[in-house]
C-alpha cells in the first residue's frame, strides 16, 4: 500500500503545482460548485458538451488542498470525449475505488493512483469533492 508520502510524491504534488485545465471556459454548457464544508475547500467546475453529447472541454477553478486539486485536475483530463452517461459511470467507479468497494482496474486509467487514499477515510472526501461537483453539473444544463 502506498504511503501518503509516496502518494504525494508520485502525482499529487505535480498536479497541485501545475493543474491541468485550471481555467474558465468561454461557452460552458454545464457548471457547478463543489464545497467541502468541513475544510472550506471549493471548486468551480465548467464543462462544454458538444452536439454529439460528448464532453469537449472541462475547466475548473477554486482553492483547496493538494489532494482535491490533483483530483480535479486529473478528472478534467479523464473526462474528455466521454458521453454524459460514461462520465457518470466513471464518477461511480472512482467513488467505489476510494471507498474500498472496488479494486483498481484498467478502466480507471491514471485515476487508480488514488486507491491509496482509501486507507485514509478523512481524506477521501477531498478527492471525491470535484466528482460530486461533476454529478451536480451534469444535472443542471445552462
Amino acid at each position, binding site marked *: 500500500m502506498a504511503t501518503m*508520502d509516496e502518494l*504525494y510524491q508520485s502525482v499529487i504534488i505535480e498536479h497541485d503545482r501545475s493543474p491541468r485545465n485550471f481555467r474558465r471556459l468561454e461557452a460552458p454548457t454545464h457548471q457547478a460548485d463543489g464545497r467541502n464544508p*468541513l*475544510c472550506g*475547500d471549493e471548486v468551480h467546475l465548467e464543462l462544454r458538451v458538444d452536439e454529439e453529447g460528448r464532453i469537449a472541454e472541462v475547466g475548473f477553478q477554486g482553492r483547496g488542498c*493538494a489532494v482535491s486539486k490533483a483530483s480535479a485536475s486529473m478528472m478534467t483530463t479523464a473526462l474528455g470525449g466521454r458521453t454524459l452517461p460514461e462520465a457518470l459511470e466513471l464518477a461511480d467507479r472512482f467513488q467505489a475505488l476510494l471507498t474500498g468497494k472496488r479494486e483498481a482496474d484498467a478502466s480507471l486509467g491514471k485515476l487508480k493512483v488514488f486507491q491509496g487514499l482509501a486507507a485514509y477515510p478523512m*481524506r477521501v472526501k477531498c478527492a471525491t469533492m470535484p466528482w460530486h461537483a461533476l454529478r451536480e453539473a451534469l444535472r443542471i444544463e445552462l
Partner: protein
Amino acid sequence: MLRTTSRGKPIVYLDTAASAQKPQAVLDAMTRFYETSNANIHRGVYQASEQATLAYDGARETLASFLGGVAPEEIVFVRGTTEAINLVAQSFLRPTLRPDDWVLVTEMEHHANIVPWQLAGARTVPVPVTDGGELDLDAARRLLSEGPRLLAVVHASNTLGTINPIAELAAMARNAGVPVLVDGAQAVGHLAVDLTTLGADFYCFSGHKLFGPTGVGVLWGRRELLEAMPPWQGGGDMIDHVSFERTTFAPVPHKFEAGTPDIAGVIGLDAAVHWLGAQDRTAIAAHEETLWRAGRELLDAVGGVVRLAVPDRNVGILTFTVDGAHPHDVASLLDQDGICVRAGHHCTQPLHRRLGLPATVRASIAPYTALADLEALAAGLRRVRQVFA
C-alpha cells in the same frame, strides 16, 4: 492513549484543544461506577441507586467549588458547551426575543457561540478582532451601548489561544445593562476560573476538554436568571407535579435536567476535576507556557512556517500555515509520523475570513505535552517542506 502508536509510530498528540486525553483516575472512576454502583439516579431507594445519586449530586458540589465556590444549584449538567449555549439561547433569549433583537458576539467565536443565537431568531453582530489577535475593546464598548440583548464571548479562543479580558468586558457590559455568557471551553483546562468574581452571568464548558469524558459538560448561570427561565426540555426528573391539566417544575438545576443524564460521564468529570485539583496548577501553567514559547521558536526555525499573530498570554495554542502547502496536506503528512494536529477552520469560519485564510494548522499544548513532541512537530514540518519543495 498516550502510550499507543499512530500509523505505526509512537503517538505525538498535539490536539488537546479538540479533546484532552484522560487521566487513569477518570477511566477508573467510570469503570468502578459501571462495575459496582450502576443504577439510575433520583429514582430507586435501593443501595445502588442511592450511591449513584450521591455520586451524581456530589459531582455538582465538586464542580461548584472548582468554579470558585458558586452555589451547587447553579450548576446544570448538559452534554457540552454546545448544548449549554443552545439551552441559554432557547430558554433565556428566545422567550423574550423581540423582532430586531441582536446578540453581541466576537469575530473569534466558535460556531457553537454564533449559530444557537441565530437559531433562536436573533441577529449576531461581532466585536472585531485586531491584527494582533485581540478583541477591539473600544469597539466592544461602543457596541455594548447600542443595546444588544446579550454579550456572548469566548474566554480563550480555540484558534488563536488568546485569553480575553472577561472581567473587563463583563464590567463594561454591566454598565450597559447587558448580560454576559462566556464560552469557557478552552479556558477551564488552563486557567483557574472564579465565577464569584469574573462578572459573567452564564459560563459553560465541555468535560472532554477538561480531561473528562465526552458527552458531559456544565452550564453555570446566576440563580435568579436560571429561576426565571422556562425549562427547555420536558420529561422525567425535571418536574414537581404532573397532571394532564398542569405541570409544575422542579427547582433549579433539576428543571433543566430532563431525563436520565449521563451519570457515568458526570462521575468521570468529577474525577477529572479532582485529578486537576490534586495537581500543582501553577506548575502546569508554567510548563505549558515554557513549551508554548519553545514551540514558537521551533516553528519559526523551520522556515516557511507562518504563525498567526497572537498576544503574549495564551492557552498553549500554536496556529500556523506552511508556505505552498494546504493545511490538510500538512496534517496528512504529519500524520504519517504519528503526529496529531488539527487542520481546517476549527469551527471558526468568520475568524478565518477575517484573517484571509481558508484554513490553518493547529497544535495545542497540554500538561502531558513534552518538548520532544514539539521537536517532532518541527522535524515533521521540515519533511513536509521537502515533499512540497
